């Protein structure tokens, strides 16, 4: 009996080694030894033929062997599966360094990006965003803005006229006029949009983009103009931006001014961008002229207001370091791709 067990054990050790991790042969081995008619099962059944004195020792020997075989077969099966898995995983390996599948990334025009950013800042500050027609009449574009026909600041050579007598707006100010005529104060608005001037050279395009702001209320002052400008440009260009006002002339404001921001390139020490002045001129501003209020039916004794303007294209150029104005209208896809939307 003991010989029998020793033979089974020796055969098992030999056969397991030769099975070499082949899952089918390991399984066959398990069936041969542990199956219902397997060798160990047979040995176990013959235990009954033993004397009562022998039985415990032999039984223990059989069970020990069975436990060992089960343990080693299980380990072999796991090893076999794992080896197969390794082969399969290796076969499924991909070259992860190949180019990934691209998604198309569209873009918004840099001037749109800048306009949206400015609109966001103004909305945050409680301004409404208003629009108006690009084809205008003399009243809204000039007369209501204290620019009567014979005014020297009204340069017709700058204005595109249409055969029907209308014109292309030369600024977004007519939107303010329409707004003031339509709605009683308080007003706290910006009007971004396309404007047209009869100009085409290295620094002028016949169509460009302006944003103007208008605030009208019972106690609006130039100090509020200063505060608003400072707030807007610090949000846009950074908290260390300084601002200054200089007296300037625009027929629709009085007092009037031009406003500059400190040069972000040289931080005020002087460079090419600011022409060594440390300041960059951004736009015009001032307190709404009483003649404008009278033209739109607002009593200048009861209300005051400020307005200011800026060129969005120029701000976009400063923001993105664009030197040549013309690229803004060329629509070269390689240029546009630099401004993902």
């Amino acid at each position, binding site marked *: 009996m003991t010989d029998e067990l020793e033979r089974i054990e020796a055969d098992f050790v030999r056969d397991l080694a030769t099975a070499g991790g082949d899952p089918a042969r390991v399984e066959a081995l398990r069936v041969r030894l542990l199956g219902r008619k397997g060798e160990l099962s047979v040995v176990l059944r013959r235990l009954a033929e033993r004397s009562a004195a022998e039985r415990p020792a032999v039984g223990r020997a059989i069970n020990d062997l069975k436990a060992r075989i089960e343990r080693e077969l299980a380990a072999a099966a796991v090893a076999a599966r794992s080896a197969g898995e390794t082969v399969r995983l290796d076969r499924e390996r991909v070259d992860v360094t190949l180019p990934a599948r691209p998604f198309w990334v569209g873009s918004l025009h840099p001037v749109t990006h800048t306009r949206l950013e400015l609109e966001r800042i103004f909305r945050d500050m409680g301004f*409404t965003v208003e629009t108006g027609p690009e084809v205008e009449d003399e009243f809204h574009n000039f007369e209501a803005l204290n620019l009567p026909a014979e005014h020297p600041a009204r340069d017709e050579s700058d204005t595109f006229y249409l055969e029907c007598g209308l014109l292309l707006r030369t600024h977004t100010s007519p939107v303010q006029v329409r707004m003031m005529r339509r709605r009683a104060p308080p007003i706290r608005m910006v009007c971004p949009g396309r404007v047209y001037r009869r100009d085409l050279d290295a620094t002028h395009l016949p169509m460009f983009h302006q944003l103007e702001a208008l605030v009208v209320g019972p106690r609006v002052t130039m100090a*509020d103009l200063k505060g608003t400008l400072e707030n807007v440009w610090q949000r846009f260009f950074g908290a260390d931006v300084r601002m200054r006002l200089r007296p300037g002339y625009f027929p629709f404001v009085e007092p009037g001014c031009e406003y500059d921001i400190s040069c972000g390139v040289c931080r005020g020490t002087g460079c090419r961008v600011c022409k060594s002045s440390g300041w960059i001129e951004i736009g015009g501003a001032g307190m709404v002229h009483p003649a404008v209020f009278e033209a739109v039916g607002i009593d200048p004794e009861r209300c*005051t207001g400020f307005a200011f303007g800026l060129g969005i294209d120029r701000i976009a150029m400063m923001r993105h370091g664009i030197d040549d104005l013309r690229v803004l209208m060329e629509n070269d896809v390689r240029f546009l791709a630099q401004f993902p939307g």
Partner: protein
Amino acid sequence: MLFSLAWLRELSPFEANAREVARRLTARGLTVESVSEATGDPVLDVDVPANRPDCLGHRGLAREVAAAFGAPLAALPTTVLGARPESAEAIRVEIDAPDLCARYTARIVRGVRVGPSPAWVVSRLAACGVRSISNVVDASNLVLLEIGQPVHFFDAARLTGRALRVRRALPGESLRTLDGVVRALGPEMLVIADGDRAAALAGILGGFDSEIGPSTTEVLVEAAWFRPASVRATSRILGVRTEASHRFERGTDIEAPIAAQQLAARLLEELASGEAAAGTVDVYPAPRPPLQLSLRLDRIERLLGYTPPPDRVLAALSAVHLAPRAIDVGRIEVTVPSWRVDLGREPDLVEEVARHEGYDAIPVSLDGLPCGVPHPPDDDPEGRARAILASIGFQEAFGYAMIGEGEDDEFVRDAPKAERLVNPIADPLAYLRRSLLPSLLRSVDTNHRRGARDVRLFEVGRVFWFERPPSLPTERRCAAIAWSGAARPQHWSEPPVEIEFPDVAGVVERVLSGVWPGQATTRRLGGPAALHPGRSAYWTVADGTVVARAGALHPTRQRAFEHPIWLAEIDLDTLAAFPATAVRSTVVPRLSPVSRDLSLRMPRDRSFEGIARALRSVPAPAPARFEVLDRYEGPPLAADELSLTVRVHLAPDERTLVDAEIEAYRSELVVVIERVEGVRLRTE
């Protein structure tokens, strides 16, 4: 305008150097663009604002410098005594048009010898950018540059009748101006005429026949005030702009002519050995009293946000010669000097105070911004269209609103006539566009020529439909796309795919549903003439309004381009006019959907729309949806046949469907479908 620092210093002895003067003038609104120190005498280039013609002369700018530094101002030139006979005996002046000429003064200077100017005159003029001509002509320019008042010199001997008449031009009258050009004059143009005819164009240009020449000995000095609008209109009509017209059209000092001709007479004596006649002719029919204005101190607070102390306000107003008088508490009265043509209302005085105190003194605040401003509802179809198109790989382009004649004719349907610009920059920019596509096509072409094949551009902008000129046009907000190259992002794992109609239709419908969620549109074959008639479509809403058009560029146009181009244009305004309602949520069924496929064989000219309509007409046991699974042309089908596989999805929401129900529905679908002419279920 260029200013000599040395000259300014003669008129107002200040200490500051050029850089400091530039800084202070800029802070007072007279922006110094540059300071040139090429010669010993620094030259300031000052951008004089249009409302400050008083600063278009050294004396005027010196007033600002004097105010800035508290420096004194030199007195005006002293009276020239002159010789007999007096000017008034030598010449008569009459003003026929006092509405256009409020004052005309003249003076005679005799014995003038025309010759070169001395060196100091040549260099002083050169500093101001003016070329020396002769001692006599230079004298008039020195007056202009110092006082800002243009003076005109006639050769008195060449005037007939020794009488001048300031009048409107006569019908058919013309004048040979000193540039040699014979100009036809209009009835609203003001001229200075001698006994025979027009001798000068008032305030703009002298006449050729009375010009100062080498043989001139007797000079008639004219210094006058002409109405700005009149000078401006004449100058514009004739296309002539001169240093004189530049000043007159902005408004000159009505009290300056006497001082100007005094200075002219003195210079002619000094530079050209002339002898001024005594006295002057001064026709000034309605002398203007100085303007009195009143300033409330609280108005300063209301406009500037702070009030300087009253004595500072008075000092500021005094510094610019406004002669302020404190009338009562909080109110000051001023007399506006005749040269300050820009001061007419109270806020102008507030600006004078602010300028003198410096704009840096204005505090920074946000306290006065009004609250309670109603915000309009957010209706931004343009923004939504931009965001969608950028998110699916298109790039935003900008196009001019102006295009060439007829360039958009074949891109629009039922559009009113295009409106032409009176003064376009160039012919390709002469009409207002009625479609965004022509300029977008130009940009595609530019990109093709630069070697790009894959071009996906869009523009969101306005087109202009003049339905009832001269009323304002309808400005439609539109989105347009132009697409060439690949239909999908290219990858090594699959072959490139060319753009087909469904690709373009997909973009259009993505925009339509994004801008205007939940609204049904219908797509039909056809498009504007510029598109391929068999590969274009238009989209309508329930009431039949066309909201979009798209398709391949017409083959005859396509030939001009390097790669096939697909186009689409969407009218965002028509869409925005329909109310966008919030989506109503529905309960999602929890049961598994089932599906059945139908493979159909049909003639090629059947549209899917007909099949879909038939399928939809069969009552379904649960909500049904139809999906095109496959479309095939080729063997073994006949040449005029195609096969279409439609998958029918049923989404039961209450109970699971039994096979018998589904099969009964499918059989009914087959029956109905086969009633469509030529359509058969495929059975192989």
